[in-house]
């Protein structure tokens, strides 16, 4: 398999902060809004350098979404920042009516997604956000895998006209993608070619998928790892090209089984090329307090879970072939 050396370890939210600052320097229309989480979202550098283009909204996320929608009228490109929970579930109707239905050019940037938020517990660990955002007509949904890719995605979404949900996280994780990558919305990235099983992963699970791929290789299983950083629009061609070769699928995401990447892929498979699929995702449950590493293991989101899922799905494929 193709090896990816760890360049360093960083949090994806810092990639967002760095990207936002660069955007601020490049594009005078970019403005930023935050609901009392400037430090957590790493938006402080932007605030310091562009105080006139930064809006501290206070703890009022609904108002923030509405103000962002209004800022677009006259040509600004607003980036809202708060935790993923408060970026989606808390403000779903504001996003739906004032942003998505009104087709406003707002970039909803959401940190601390999923169980890797850690010790704060289930109240803050949203695992339903991808599903909610995927369902909104016209919404682009992006979940990059590391610092460099989050930075590149932040830059790219400013060039896209229309609402975008950009999801990233809190923990420090391996940074392994290229610092000068060009981020193409909706274009899946082939990380490692294989022939036995397709592993489609997003966000923090991409690195776990590479770890799993290496372990599978040692067991004589050739896994293909594809980074689905854009969940909507999904790269249907890349998904189908891979499954036509392998004939079975593992999807991996830090999200509920319901509504996330796995369901997006299942929809493609049932319509175009039905093959067995296994989900690595949270199984209809809320999270809890703990370290990110402990939680990833407890909730079945570790490299080991991907390995087991790959073995299960290969067995199912074999049974189907032999049936």
């Amino acid at each position: 398999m193709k090896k990816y050396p760890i360049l360093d370890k960083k949090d994806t939210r810092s990639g967002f902060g760095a990207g936002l600052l660069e955007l601020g320097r490049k594009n005078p229309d970019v403005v930023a809004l935050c609901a009392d989480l400037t430090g957590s979202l790493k938006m402080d550098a932007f605030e310091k350098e562009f105080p006139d283009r930064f809006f501290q909204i206070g703890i009022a996320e609904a108002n923030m979404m509405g103000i962002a929608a209004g800022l677009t009228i006259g040509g600004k490109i607003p980036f809202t920042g708060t935790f993923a929970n408060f970026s989606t579930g808390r403000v779903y109707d504001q996003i739906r009516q004032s942003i998505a239905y009104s087709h406003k050019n707002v970039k909803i940037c959401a940190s601390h997604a999923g169980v890797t938020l850690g010790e704060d517990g289930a109240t803050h660990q949203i695992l339903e956000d991808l599903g909610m955002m995927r369902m909104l007509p016209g919404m682009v949904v992006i979940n990059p895998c590391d610092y460099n890719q989050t930075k590149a995605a932040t830059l790219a979404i400013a060039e896209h006209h229309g609402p975008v949900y950009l999801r990233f996280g809190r923990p420090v994780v391996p940074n392994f993608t290229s610092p000068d990558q060009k981020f193409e919305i909706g274009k899946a990235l082939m990380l490692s070619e294989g022939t036995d099983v397709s592993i489609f992963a997003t966000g923090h699970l991409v690195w776990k998928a590479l770890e799993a791929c290496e372990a599978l290789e040692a067991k004589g299983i050739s896994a293909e790892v594809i980074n689905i950083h854009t969940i909507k629009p999904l790269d249907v061609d890349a998904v189908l090209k891979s499954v036509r070769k392998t004939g079975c699928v593992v999807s991996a995401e830090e999200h509920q089984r319901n509504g996330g990447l796995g369901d997006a892929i299942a929809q493609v498979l049932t319509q175009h090329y039905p093959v067995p699929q296994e989900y690595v995702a949270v199984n209809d449950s809320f999270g809890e307090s703990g370290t990110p590493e402990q939680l990833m293991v407890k909730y079945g989101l570790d490299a080991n879970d991907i390995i087991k899922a790959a073995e299960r799905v290969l067995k199912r494929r074999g049974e189907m072939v032999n049936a």
Partner: protein
Amino acid sequence: MTTDINELKRIASQVRRDIVRMVNACNSGHPGGSLGCADFFTAMYFNILRKNDKFEMNGKGEDLFFLSNGHISPVWYSVLARSGFFDVKELATFRRINTRLQGHPTTHEGLDGIRVASGSLGQGLSVAIGAALTKKLNKEDCLVYCLCGDGEMEEGQVWEAAMYAGAKKTDNLIAVIDVNGQQIDGSVEHVLPYGDLRPKFESFGWKVIDMDGNNMENIIQIMNEAKSLTGKKQPVVVLMKTEMGQGVDFMMGSHKWHGVAPNAEQLKVALNQLEETLGDY
């Protein structure tokens, strides 16, 4: 711009005819609040707002108007058509399949004059603040107006917005609250008696003025006063007293015509009370 008060009143009469005919034709929609705000909308679009000749979403170099209580779309559609945003004939399509005149206003069907969808209450003031901030960033000397309902004041987001605009001195923003005292389930006093609006807005740093929303002279005078109060480090809110159903006697003095359409017989009675001044659509 129409400065003749009598002419404005004549336009408002036609707008009221449009409203009752529109809701009757599709047997749905919200005549009560629409009739109550007919004078205000007429004053805004024929006198108060500085508008460009051609509608553009970005609205550069012109005043912007947002309707937060989107259910009173009939009055807005009528006034938009009567002031030239689209052909008045299109009013006949209100709430019908494939129409641009959706039950609640939307940008989705490309209707000139509308810059954000509204209907789910409480969101418009926030959007108006955002648009006002962009006006400031673009160094435009233009104003942003937003109409909300008094029942709508029960939505929490309104107060997030009120708090923000006051605290951040959004002084190119004029909010207008339609104080008709009615909402779907009854009077505001019956549903949720939330007390005086004036001290609430004042405590958040707004300049508060009163207006008789069914008196054209007073509307022109007070809205001009509101304009003169902008640019003074605080947002302005106009508490606009109106009568739900104004102009049609059997629709007045009650919440019952909030969201009910008149039947053919009731329409006839209503139209007899409203002079046809500009020709029905």
